[in-house]
Structures are given as structure tokens and as C-alpha cells.
């Protein structure tokens, strides 16, 4: 019976959540690859370095962007991440793509025309730059979150000196995000089973009241969790795992990609 109720909830879900899975596990794609096996903090450093090289490249050196994209594609292949999955997840950047698409049409300065349309050169370049760099940024983040569980990413950030309290807040968030969204979903089902359908601003009061109830439940849960932790000896610091040293070899492996990107960038500068 309980099973059945669960099934109904799943079929009615509007939030697009898979129930019973950790938010990190949901994004994580379990594969065996070099990318997956690298320690998280090494991966984060490599991702940022790659990103910095990409962002500091001018879009006029378009050959470099082709090279960067091939490096990303290579990483996706090595990490055994389906291109389709990466493409679907990168749809998140659509609002800014729309913004960038408008740029060649509304601008100032030098104009040129392709067929019947007049375009602004500066606007076109800036638009291409935003889309190109934004897409690479999104793909890097996708590779990171697909090849690393959320918990590991957090552990990596902790190693990179993210303050303890922030790490703890984030771990609580990862731990309870499903509990809280499920609670919200149950409230939605409860509203729907009483014939409620939100269609306009006149229904905001009910939705806002639900948000308030969600806050109260979250806060009370926070208190309960805190008391439970205190009774188990919590004193503001969470227990730590053994810290393993990362060898130079692993760092070299991880930093190959940003290094290649940087090398190409520098060669281009010298060559010009």
C-alpha cells in the first residue's frame, strides 16, 4: 500500500525529481574512468585552471576555441559521459544565449550584412564570445558533477579550504534536500487532493502559506537534528576521514588538460 502511494506521488511530480536519490547521486553518473578516479580537489583545481585559460582567450582567436571544445569532447569521451546527457544539462544556459543572440542586431559601430540582415561586428563577436565561453563553462561544471558525487565535490572544496561551517551547511543541505523537497511534494499532493489548482496571483496566499509551513518544518527539523547531534557528542566539528596524500603523478594527470589549453594559448600569442 505504501508502495502504491509512493508511485502516485512519483507520477504526479512536477519538480522533475527522482525520489529516493541523493541530489548528488542523481547527477552523478557511475563509470570507471580516469576522470572519475581523480581526487575531487585535484579535479576542481584543474576545472578552474582550464576555465581561466578559456575566459582569458579572445574570441577572435577562434581556432583556440575549436581546440578547447575538442579537449572538452575528449574529456567527455574518456569519462564515458554521453554527449546527449551533457547537451541536455547544458540547456541551463539558454537565457544568456538568448541575450547573446540579440547582440549582433542591436549595437553600435561597424556594420556588415549577410544577405538581407545587417549585423554589428562588435555585437556579433561579443555574442559569440559569451555563448562560447559560457558553453565551455557549463560543460566543465557538467563533467565535474557527472564524474564526481556531490559529497566528494564538497570534500574537495573542504580540502581547498572552504570554511568548516560552510562545508557543514552544504552537507546538511545535501543530506536534507530530498527530505525537504519530498515534504513540499506531499504538501502539493495534499493541496491537489483537496481540489486546489494554482492558476494565478489570487492563489499566491495559499502557496506562500505552504512555503511558510515548509520553513517551519525545516527549522524544526534543524532543531531536532541539532539536538540529536548534541546528544551524540557534536561540538561544532564533524569527524574527519583519514587524509590521503595526493601524489605528484596524479596532479600531473589532472592538469594535462588545462596545461594543453594554456600551451595552445601561449603558442598562439607567440605566433601572432
Amino acid at each position, binding site marked *: 500500500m505504501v508502495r502504491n502511494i509512493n508511485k502516485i506521488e512519483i507520477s504526479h511530480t512536477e519538480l522533475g525529481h527522482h525520489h529516493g536519490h541523493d541530489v*548528488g547521486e542523481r547527477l552523478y553518473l557511475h563509470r570507471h574512468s580516469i576522470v572519475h578516479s581523480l581526487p575531487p580537489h585535484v579535479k576542481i583545481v584543474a576545472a578552474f585552471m582550464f576555465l581561466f585559460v578559456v575566459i582569458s582567450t579572445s574570441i577572435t582567436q577562434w581556432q583556440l576555441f575549436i581546440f578547447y571544445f575538442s579537449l572538452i569532447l575528449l574529456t567527455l569521451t574518456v569519462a564515458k559521459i554521453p554527449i546527449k546527457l551533457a547537451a541536455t544539462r547544458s540547456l541551463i544556459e539558454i537565457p544568456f544565449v538568448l541575450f547573446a543572440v540579440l*547582440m549582433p542586431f542591436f549595437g553600435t559601430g561597424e556594420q556588415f550584412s549577410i544577405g538581407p540582415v545587417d549585423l554589428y561586428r562588435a555585437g556579433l563577436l561579443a555574442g559569440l564570445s559569451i555563448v562560447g565561453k559560457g558553453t565551455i*563553462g557549463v560543460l566543465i561544471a557538467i563533467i565535474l558533477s557527472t564524474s564526481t558525487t556531490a559529497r566528494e565535490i564538497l570534500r574537495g572544496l573542504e580540502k581547498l579550504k572552504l570554511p568548516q561551517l560552510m562545508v557543514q551547511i552544504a552537507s*546538511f543541505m545535501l543530506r536534507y534536500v530530498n527530505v*525537504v523537497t519530498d515534504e*513540499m511534494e506531499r504538501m502539493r499532493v495534499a493541496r491537489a487532493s483537496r481540489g486546489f489548482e494554482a*492558476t494565478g496571483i489570487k492563489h499566491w496566499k495559499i502557496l506562500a502559506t505552504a512555503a*511558510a509551513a515548509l520553513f517551519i518544518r525545516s*527549522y524544526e527539523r534543524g532543531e531536532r537534528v541539532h539536538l540529536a547531534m548534541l546528544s551524540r557528542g557534536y561540538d561544532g566539528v564533524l569527524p574527519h576521514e583519514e587524509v590521503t596524500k595526493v601524489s605528484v603523478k596524479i596532479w600531473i594527470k589532472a592538469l594535462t588538460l588545462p596545461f594543453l589549453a594554456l600551451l595552445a594559448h601561449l603558442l598562439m600569442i607567440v605566433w601572432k
Partner: protein
Amino acid sequence: MHIPDGFIDLPTSGIFAAASAAGIALSLKGAKKSLDEKSAPLAGLTATFIFAVQMLNFPVAAGTSGHLLGGALAAVLVGPYAATLALSVVLLMQSFLFADGGLSALGLNIFNMAFIGVWVGYGFFLLIRKLLPKTKSSITIAASIAGLLSVPAAATGFVLQYAIGGTATFSVQTVLAAMVGTHVLIGIGEAIITGLAVGAVMASRSDLVYGWRGNSSLLEIRKSI
């Protein structure tokens, strides 16, 4: 809508990342003072709440809908320090896990939403609370106005960053007009929802509302007559 990578140049992103790091450090200090050792689980659940409530759709008209940003709401409910931390963590997780907001733009996004959004909202909340009589409905009104102003304020933060290091070709004036214009509208929605939500919490658990705590009387021990 979060800023992606490459939209604002690297030096500007770096400056705002440093500013955000400093702000988080200050908030960590402030939160420890105001929330004692409870801070981690409570701020964690607040972050979870903000993350979840941003997925709650508020229908506007003709199929469009909006959602709460939650800066002012969090500030009024749990205090500005914990709210800053919660929103920073939400933004951190959104960029690392969902690619929502660029990794290199994290400092920019935290600055706009977790600092400007929270602190401008909380500042106006305090100001209006002072001007109004000390009643429960004043808290609701003050929270609502805080919500109204926090959204365009955060948008102004974006325009500032755009003016310093924007890579797009739209003029700063155009961006300012477009951003502030649309965000005043979003702010009106935010104001209504924030007011209603704070009002609902005030009605059942006013003791939880940080912005009311100073006013509520402590447990009174009366002597028997």
C-alpha cells in the same frame, strides 16, 4: 538567472570573488555570535528550504510563472548572517552541481544575491520596522517592502559588475534600464510572496522569526495572587 562564465571579465570576477570571500568570513563570525553552536544544522536546513522554495512555482498569468528568490525572506526569518551563508551555499551548490551560474562567476553571483539581496533587504526591514508600531503586522509589511527592494538592488549589483567588466556590447544605460525595470516587476512579486510567507510564519510560530525576536517578550513568570 545566474551569471555564466565569460560574461564578466576575469579581473572583475576576481575582485568580486575576494569581496564575497570577505563577506562570507564576516557572516561566519556574525552567525556564530547570533546562532551559537546551533548554526550548522539550522543554517543548513535554511539553505535547503531556500533551495526547495525556489522550485515552488507561483503562476502569474497565461502560463507564465515566477519563483521566490528568498534573500529578504531568509534575512527576516533567520537573520542576515545565517541568510547570507545559506544563500551562498545554495549558489555554490547550484554552480557546482547544476552548472547554474558559472564557476568563475560564483563571486559575482554570491555578491549580488547573498550580500546585496540579503543586506539591502534586511536594512530596509530594520528601517521600516523602526518607523512602524511594534505589532506583528508591521513585521509582515516591513518584510514585504524588504522583498520589494532587495530584488532590484541585486539587479543593480549586476549592472555595477557589467559596467566594470562586462563583455557584451549593450550600453550600461540600456542594461541598467532593462535590468532594473524587469526586476522592479519581479520585486513586486517577491514583495507579495515574502509578506504572505512571513505573515503565515508569524501567525503560527512568531518565536522563530529572527526579525521579531527583539520585540517578543520573554517567558514571563507571574506570581500567584
